[in-house]
């Protein structure tokens, strides 16, 4: 069992959540409230990371973030940061790839809030910020939970993009998904089964724990 790879995957999943949560909340809320005619186009745009096969998306990301790309060179020269074949690169890729999972359920969550309640909040003097925290977020919570669980689990299992941008470096970019894949390719089925099982059990526990922690009391008997 490659614990290092599992730890890396969990780190990546958590970091992805950390980056995408604020961005996702703001954009999902904006999309939910928007009456702009561009809205369906923006929604479609949000979906695009899902459309390309992961390895191909990874390839494009590598070409645009890699050391030979203008962006990659700029990051290397000015920030001293490499955007590929390291954790940062993985994170960038993971963030891009998870946008649809994060935004869609959150947007539905925000859309489901009765407008009347937002009005009640503003009339009661709550600032946009307070309304967000005390009214919108709690009411959109099931959608936000869905988004977070989907993103977390999906990052654990993500393979193509991560392999392409990360390059399967043990301890740095070899995630548990890649490690399992390697085991299968090497016909080490025992190892593969063991790792798969560990991952499945871990994710199940993680999902149950987060659903339990984020559960809301049912709407009441009536």
């Amino acid at each position, binding site marked *: 069992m490659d614990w290092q790879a599992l730890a890396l995957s969990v780190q990546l999943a958590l970091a992805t959540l950390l980056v995408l949560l604020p961005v996702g909340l703001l954009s999902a809320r904006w999309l939910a409230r928007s009456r702009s005619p561009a809205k369906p186009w923006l929604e479609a745009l949000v979906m695009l990371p899902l459309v390309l096969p992961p*390895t191909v998306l990874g*390839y494009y990301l*590598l*070409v645009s973030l*890699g*050391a*030979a*790309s203008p962006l*990659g060179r700029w990051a290397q020269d000015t920030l001293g940061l*490499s955007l*590929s*074949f390291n954790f940062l690169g993985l994170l960038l890729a993971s963030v891009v790839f998870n946008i649809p999972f994060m935004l869609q359920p959150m947007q539905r969550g925000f859309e489901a809030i009765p407008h009347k309640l937002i009005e009640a909040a503003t009339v009661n003097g709550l600032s946009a910020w307070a309304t967000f925290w005390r009214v919108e977020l709690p009411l959109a919570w099931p959608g936000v939970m869905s988004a977070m669980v989907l993103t977390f689990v999906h990052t654990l299992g993500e393979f193509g993009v991560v*392999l*392409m941008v*990360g*390059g*399967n*470096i043990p301890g740095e*970019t070899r995630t548990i998904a890649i490690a399992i*894949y*390697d085991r*299968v*390719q*090497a*016909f080490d089925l025992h190892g593969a089964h063991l790792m798969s099982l560990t991952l499945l059990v871990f994710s199940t526990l993680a999902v149950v724990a987060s659903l339990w922690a984020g559960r809301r009391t049912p709407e009441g008997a009536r």
Partner: protein
Amino acid sequence: QPTTITVAAASDLKFALEDVAAQFEKGTGQRLRLVFGSSGNFFTQIQQGAPFHLYLSADEAYVFKLADAGLTTDRGRLYALGRIGLFVPKGSPVKADGELKDLARALKAGEVHKFAIANPDHAPYGARAREALQHAGLWNALQPRLVLGENISQATQFAASGATQGGVIAQSLALAPQMAAQGDFALIPATWHQPLAQRMVLLKNAPPAARAFYEHLATPAAQATLARYGFSRPKP
């Protein structure tokens, strides 16, 4: 009506086999379906009854295992020996040199940040690359900089995109016209590594037309085409 023959071929054959197949199709009027992928995947799929007729592996061990399982007509035939070499993308500080001397220099100078090979744990080209690098005494120094491709094509993409400063890749891929523009390639001596014995085998359900192509691959014309893509002729 002529049955379509499905050929599962290792991805290093991508360019070479397309040429050979075109020759064959022109000569016989027989249609071929070429499927390229990783030899290991094909092995698994054939075990599960994949409808392939002919399997061209990059590693003969897979062929023998299938033969032992009774899924093939026989133990197959070697059709080529693969060769590996150093590829350096445009703008890399490393110069393409088959003896890997400049790679050693660049490594010492700290100019090599990332270097691509196929995963030596399961890709035949990766295993040979490791042997060659070990032979050159660079393995230990290079290991922390390695990025591993799932198969040899992916390793080639890493190197070709300029994301790494170089990589050990298959000659057959490096000779593809699209690659020539991406950088330089130098062949590594064949003695530095075990031979990449590429073996093909007919599967149990193969129709006669599949055997025809199997035989065609041994013809001088086919072998000449393979040679153009950097495969050397296996010793009979």
